[in-house]
């Protein structure tokens, strides 16, 4: 003879396990796969001279901005999209924000982070090379260069805190890659890049230097690791 209370208890205990008490003992180790976690992707795209994307996944978010000569119709990888004359254009001997220059106002990566880490990289294709000039002495003309002592440096700033810097780079065209990482809270984040150049005084002989500071492309991606 089956007592009703036994029957009720058996069913209750069985259902109780399913009704909120399943735990790790019910699941083999190494069995949760990517597809078991719901795929969610919240995207915001940016278009214009500066393109980019904010995309948030379950465990991380990617935030990305780029302006590149290779993706603008009138230019190519050989043609700069920013050409500064260091003799006549505005710049400072301190950090110069790339966002202040024409076409780069939307360049900073701005987003609301989730508590965790920010891991990212800035990549800038730029040039500050030596000048070549014509020198005439004793009626003999020859070419000469100046600026071998010029140096430039790039830095990555997260909410105005310097988190990565390249160190001084001698004259050349260079693609500078600046990886960085920093802890973050659930907060608004702004990531931007800045540069410093040091040049010697130009000659006083009537030949002003043509020291050009060129940018061909700049991009920053940030991965917000939050779980």
């Amino acid at each position: 003879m089956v007592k009703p209370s036994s029957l009720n208890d058996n069913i209750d205990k069985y259902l109780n396990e399913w009704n909120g008490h399943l735990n790790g003992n019910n699941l083999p180790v190494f069995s949760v796969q990517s597809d078991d976690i719901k795929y969610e992707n919240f995207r915001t795209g940016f278009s214009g001279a500066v393109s980019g994307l904010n995309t948030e996944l379950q465990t991380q978010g990617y935030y990305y901005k780029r302006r590149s000569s290779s993706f603008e119709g009138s230019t190519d990888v050989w043609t700069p999209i920013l050409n500064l004359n260091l003799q006549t254009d505005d710049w400072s001997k301190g950090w110069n924000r790339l966002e202040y220059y024409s076409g780069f106002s939307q360049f900073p990566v701005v987003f609301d982070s989730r508590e965790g880490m920010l891991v990212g990289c800035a990549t800038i294709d730029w040039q500050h090379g030596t000048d070549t000039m014509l020198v005439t002495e004793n009626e003999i003309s020859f070419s000469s260069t100046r600026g071998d002592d010029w140096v430039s440096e790039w830095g990555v700033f997260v909410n105005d805190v310097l988190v990565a810097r390249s160190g001084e780079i001698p004259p050349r065209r260079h693609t500078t890659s600046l990886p960085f990482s920093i802890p973050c809270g659930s907060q608004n984040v702004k990531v931007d890049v800045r540069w410093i150049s040091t040049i010697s005084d130009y000659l006083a002989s009537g030949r002003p230097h043509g020291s050009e500071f060129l940018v061909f492309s700049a991009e920053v991606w940030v991965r917000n690791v939050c779980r």
Partner: protein
Amino acid sequence: MGEERMPLITNKTNFAPGDVPTAAELNAPYDSLQSVGDDIDGTNTATGWITWRHTEAGLTGNAIANRLYQYNNDTTNETLYNNTSYVTISEGGNPAQLSLGFTSESGECVRFHASGMVGESTVTTDYDYAGLPGGNKGKPNYYAFRLLLNATVGGAPTTINLGEWGYSFTTKKSGNLTSITTPTLSGRIHWQPFAFSAVYSPNSSITFNSVELQCKVYDNTNSLSVERHQLYAVRAKR
């Protein structure tokens, strides 16, 4: 079951003394469980129900949040390139190509890295007098790399430019020469590493087949020397 989630199962009968359970009454809780058993969610689980030991380990294979793909060519032999259109770098018959072979979910995000070493390039010109004023005067000094994605979009194979990045053979940039067409070369830059990265996220599901590292020079009288190089791709899945 779509977005439906497994509810708490309440479809049961409490039996009292003297009741004669029917088959339907006895089967009801089990039938309910069977009908929604594929949709267990947080309602059904205890706090702290999962540990990291329950997730698949490692970056490769069917990892949870990210998957890493990598290609490494560690040759120290230098290969020269003087092509003015992009060609895929190839060292010892091995093209710099990273196989991917996955179909993304809509809006997935993949980031790409490349790095390597430029050796002793052959440089004959780094300045173009004919390009004055402005114009191409500094361009013969340049070489560039490109990351090219081979993908299948809407059933059709296609290539996607992930980015291009440049360097110079020497320190020279600009100048105001007017009468000397072949100025002295500035200091050659040898044994310089290169590195860059890019993020790509298509709006829709596409098949990522492979990514290639390519190079070109502006002036074919110069030859770019490339030796060891690496390619990485990180697929952000969750």
